[in-house]
């Protein structure tokens, strides 16, 4: 993103964006992959449904110039949009945008809003790196926006400061499963933003709005998603690589899956996290 390139939030490691899930069992891999395919697809729709239903003013969208289908959501909803920059194509989730080297790998990163006035305000806020305005227009709770503004730039991934604000006991960090964003890299999440802590009441209210949409679409998958988000995990970063190891139980001995993600920062930490 532009603010990264301007050095407001300086990544210390250059890496291709990547995120990948590794499993230990073919059956569980198939089950979880099916669940993630569903959650990725439905959460994408919900992000825009939130605009239609008045929970937020705007959202970001990656438009594929080779695939007009990627603009369907704008056309169908009569949203207003503005291209903010061209970015390089990547798989999964990434903290950082790179300039494309050719047209084939270019995606258009756009602002999508309910009306022209919001679009103008949102786009300008993006260009000047005004996270407060962006966060509020995306409908995130004020406390979470304030938290983001305070920490973004010092950390490229805010899980660690969020964990430090959360309920803890010894080396264990507790999280509300609805606020588990540690697996968002592969699409397992409810909320799309960093909560100020993993028990944040306002973020839970926001999560409940999204859960309502999810339950309406598929209550069984919604329960399964919450079940996955309730698993204990070890979240760590070493040498710019983030790893979330998800375990079957709190003994941390029986791994279910491992999610690996580029992190860009030399911050090193290891968090043992359990629901609570």
């Amino acid at each position, binding site marked *: 993103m532009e603010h990264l390139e301007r050095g407001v939030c300086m990544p*210390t*490691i*250059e*890496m*291709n*964006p*990547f*995120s*990948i899930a*590794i*499993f*230990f*069992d*073919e059956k569980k*891999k198939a089950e979880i992959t099916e669940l993630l395919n569903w959650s990725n697809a439905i959460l994408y729709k919900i992000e825009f449904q939130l605009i239609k239903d008045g929970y937020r003013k705007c959202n970001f969208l990656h438009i594929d110039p080779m695939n007009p289908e990627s603009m369907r959501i704008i056309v169908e909803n009569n949203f207003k949009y503005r291209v903010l920059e061209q970015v390089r*194509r*990547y*798989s*999964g989730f990434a903290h950082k945008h790179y300039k494309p080297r050719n047209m084939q790998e270019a995606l258009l990163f756009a602002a999508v809003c309910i009306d022209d006035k919001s679009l103008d305000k949102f786009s300008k806020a993006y260009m000047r790196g005004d996270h407060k305005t962006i966060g509020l227009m995306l409908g995130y709770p004020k406390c979470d926006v304030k938290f983001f503004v305070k920490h973004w730039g010092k950390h490229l991934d805010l899980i660690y400061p969020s964990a430090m604000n959360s309920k803890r006991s010894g080396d264990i960090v507790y999280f509300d499963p609805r606020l588990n964003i540690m697996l968002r890299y592969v699409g397992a999440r409810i909320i799309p933003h960093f909560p100020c802590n993993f028990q944040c009441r306002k973020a839970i209210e926001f999560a409940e709005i999204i859960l309502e949409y999810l339950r309406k679409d598929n209550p069984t998958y919604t329960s399964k998603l919450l079940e996955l988000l309730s698993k204990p995990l070890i979240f*760590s970063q*070493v*040498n*710019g*690589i983030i*790893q979330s190891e998800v375990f079957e139980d709190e003994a941390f*001995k*029986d*791994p279910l899956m*491992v999610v*690996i993600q*580029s992190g860009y920062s*030399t911050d090193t930490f290891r968090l043992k996290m359990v629901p609570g």
Partner: protein
Amino acid sequence: MTLLVMPTLSCNFKCLYCYNRLLGKNVPEFTKYDPETLAAKAITLAKTINHQEIVLHGGEPLLWNIKHLHKFMDIISKAGYRIAIQTNGSLITDKHIQLFRKYNVSVGVSIDGFPDIGYARGLYNERGEPLISKEVNERIVSNVLRNIEKLVKNGINVGVIIVLSKYNFGDDSKIDRLAEFIKYLRKIGVTSGRLNPVFGFGRIEPYELSWKDLLYGYKLLWYKIRDLGVSYSPYVDISKALLGNFRDVVCWFHGCGFFDSFVWTITPYGTIAPCDRALGFGKIPLRADIYNNPIANSKIRVYALLQTELKNSRNGHIHRGGCPSESPNGDWRHPSRFWRTWDELIEFMSEEIRKIIPNIKLPNNYPNKLEFVEKIDRGCAWNIWRGGFACPQSR
């Protein structure tokens, strides 16, 4: 690339440093597949990754019923693939030797030296206490040596894997004894092998060599064996890399991640896993599909390391951080605990090569390490006479 097939995870040995023992309890001891199905799986995978050799690995693969071995080898051989086997060498019978001859199998034997220094291999309990007397263990090692001789006498290609620990590499006298062992192997016709450092999993930790001790040992051993006409890793691999052949070097220097390694393994479950060294996770991970992903490719760990822990290394672009399973605290995101050994040994071998070819331009100490890795992986060739790259034309 290396393609391993594990028909079993069982073993008649319980070596001090074995990483298979870290697996949980619910792992099948033997493959659930018949040899036909397992061979078909191996051939399909070999075709997919365009690899010509299939290695039977374990556990101890000779615990597999000989009829099954025969069937498996027959199918693999008829399909046109080379076969290799990695064994502890204790269970080799005349029937196995006939089989190896028939299918032209290359045999890798794991042995750590003469009986007096080779006893980290053998039978130990979870606390690292020996389950048999030293004398019995020595008899077992002697038996393995006899089997190696038999294999060689029968015209079978044999290489050895020697695991280096304080037992066999801990001081000058032990290094002398190991050099004698390599000379003995040369005499009976074994000319190649690997000198792998042991890496700590609990009970072996006290016997692990520090990076400095390992470097000292490698240098000393080099002077003792360099004129024997033998080909041992890591010397041979470092020399290959310095001369511009990065493709054929030992897997340690390929910059593997933990889940996307240079090695592909078919487990007793029939699943495709990364390197067998990744089994120490407590469960067998399924292989990540990183090689087939043009964006998130296999350079993740190398690129990260060259900007962090290996930023000031002299030769991180050549050793690429070493084997991820050797990383401290079991965390693959660090470089191998022996990366400084590789860094220095590459310098040492550079000097050795320059003594023979003074005007050669070797790529050690290349200033832009990320650029070097990127060029090598793009198919550029290092020119040892001009000291630069020749790269394929991009379209």
